């Protein structure tokens, strides 16, 4: 009696319409916007969020902020979630052994991708945690003898913030400037090295502008001076060939969700020969060689491992595909528009990251118009504040150009139609905004903007 009443109320609440959520299920494809024409009034599949109305889902071109889960990774994670539920650190029964086995398989997969031994891989929650652990952990361990850290001005915010934290504790940090193409000046690095330098941290591929630093040369310099070399390789693994021996790195940070793996997992490479020590950030039961205590999330780790293995297999193919799409995007935009600047070196660059500035057009207004394309202006970390991107400022870009950058992220699953549609939408919006721009008008009349006395208030 009572159960029947409960069941009927449950049924009523379950079959209540969920306000368009059900219809959204059918629009998970990002290519839907590519084939959609102008939104017509009364479009019941239109999504209205944050005051913006778009028909269909936007094209996803923001691969540097995160990547969609590869279906093969999902399959592996799904199976692992259901079956490998044991605690991988339980030594006494089959459930623990099976889970530990799954973790060790993943460890080998990650190690193979970077040319390391599985014993040198430590799993944790992501590249941010790895960066924090290395920067703070190494300096805290050697705090009596080593008081100096060298890093660059274009590092990821977590590295810069960790360095700032160290400065508050009394360490000294040198933030190396970069050249206008985004690359580190090796002479300046050499000059900055002191006898008490404890760590050099340079990211391999920049998340905002996509430039690839000269890792082998930096590794050689660090080896000469016997300084541990740390690199944030979150945007690099699975995309460019990474070899910890060739680069001579002592520490490397890796992230799962940048290579079509799950979020919430990452890894840290800690060299064993020659041995480098660091203080752990997470104290506890001594898991992961004592460097990161805590129970591992088995299915996350398994997902990360599979993602690394897939990346190793498909790196060459992905590179060709993405390079092709990058050229299509750049040429498509350059054909129709002038005043397009590529931020950062075009030669030493990861193809999947295209950071463009459009002269005389302001970035936020362009983003507002590009609501059918999911792109980013600068990095996600700085998008919460109103600062122009610090990476672009470090490149020496003019203040007004720093406000205009758009970062297109191309990935394994991007299609040609998406690129063509993105080109079309971008060109249309830029032309519309240039029509509205007094600066463009002045340039067309032949006035040199740099010579005008602006009345600031």
């Amino acid at each position, binding site marked *: 009696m009572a159960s029947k009443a409960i069941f009927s109320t449950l049924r009523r609440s379950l079959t209540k319409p969920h306000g368009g959520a059900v219809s959204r299920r059918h629009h998970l494809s990002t290519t839907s916007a590519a084939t959609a024409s102008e939104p017509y009034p009364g479009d019941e599949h239109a999504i209205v969020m944050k005051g913006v109305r778009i028909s269909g889902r936007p094209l996803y071109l923001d691969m540097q902020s995160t990547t969609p889960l590869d279906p093969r990774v999902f399959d592996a994670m799904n199976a692992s979630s259901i079956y490998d539920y044991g605690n991988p650190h339980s030594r006494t029964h089959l459930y623990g052994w099976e889970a530990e086995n799954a973790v060790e398989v993943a460890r080998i997969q990650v190690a193979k991708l970077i040319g390391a031994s599985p014993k040198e891989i430590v799993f944790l929650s992501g590249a941010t945690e790895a960066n924090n652990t290395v920067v703070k952990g190494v300096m805290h361990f050697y705090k009596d003898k080593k008081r100096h850290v060298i890093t660059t001005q274009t590092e990821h915010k977590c590295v810069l913030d960790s360095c700032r934290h160290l400065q508050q504790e009394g360490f000294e940090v040198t933030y190396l400037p970069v050249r206008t193409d985004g690359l580190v000046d090796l002479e300046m690095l050499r000059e900055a090295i002191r006898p008490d330098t404890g760590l050099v941290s340079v990211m391999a591929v920049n998340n905002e502008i996509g430039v690839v630093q000269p890792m082998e040369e930096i590794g050689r310099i660090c080896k000469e001076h016997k300084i541990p070399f740390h690199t944030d390789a979150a945007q690099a693994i699975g995309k460019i060939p990474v070899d910890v021996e060739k680069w001579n790195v002592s520490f490397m940070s890796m992230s799962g969700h940048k290579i079509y793996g799950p979020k919430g997992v990452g890894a840290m490479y800690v060299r064993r020969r020659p041995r480098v020590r660091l203080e752990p950030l997470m104290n506890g039961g001594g898991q992961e060689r004592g460097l990161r205590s805590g129970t591992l999330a088995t299915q996350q780790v398994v997902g990360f491992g599979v993602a690394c293995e897939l990346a190793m297999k498909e790196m060459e193919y992905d590179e060709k595909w993405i390079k092709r799409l990058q050229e299509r995007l750049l040429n498509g935009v350059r054909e129709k528009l002038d005043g397009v600047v590529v931020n950062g070196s075009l030669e030493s660059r990861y193809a999947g990251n295209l950071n463009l500035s459009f002269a005389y057009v302001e970035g936020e207004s362009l983003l507002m118009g590009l609501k059918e394309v999911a792109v*980013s202006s600068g990095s996600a970390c700085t998008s919460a504040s109103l600062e122009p991107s610090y990476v672009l400022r470090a490149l020496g870009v003019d203040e007004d150009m720093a406000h205009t950058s758009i970062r297109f992220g191309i990935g394994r699953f991007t299609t040609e139609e998406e690129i063509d549609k993105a080109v079309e939408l971008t060109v249309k919006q830029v032309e519309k905004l240039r029509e509205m721009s007094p600066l463009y008008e002045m340039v067309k009349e032949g006035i040199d903007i740099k010579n005008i006395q602006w009345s600031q208030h």
Partner: protein
Amino acid sequence: MMMIRQAAKKALGLTSRQSTPCSVGIFRSYHENVIDHYDNPRNVGSFDKNDPTVGTGLVGAPACGDVMKLQIKVDEKTGQIVDARFKTFGCGSAIASSSVATEWVKGKAMEEVLTIKNTEIAKHLSLPPVKLHCSMLAEDAIKAAVKDYKEKRVKTGGV
């Protein structure tokens, strides 16, 4: 018991497929008035700067990320603003503020438009605190345009 468990499973099944739509890439919500002015801007364009009935106000700086050019066409006999045009380099709120400014100055006397306050523009567009400077710039642009027209009149020996 079994039926409740089944119903609960159905509930779980439904909620797991309910994917939350992704953000459209902007980090704060714009009022629909702002978006309307951005999608359908009113009065974009230019008048001839050298026309004696036109006043031009150019305010802001590219380094700040906002430049507004507001032009008014004034009827010489009555002193009323008969038409207005704008061009803006700036964010969506800046474009909307200057578009609203051109709408509000049309058909008004010059002295009257000098009383337009940035707070009114901001209220009409529901601008968040970080974007109030856009409305300030619009108010400055109106004043600058009126000032420019008056200076022109003095030069040509008019009233």
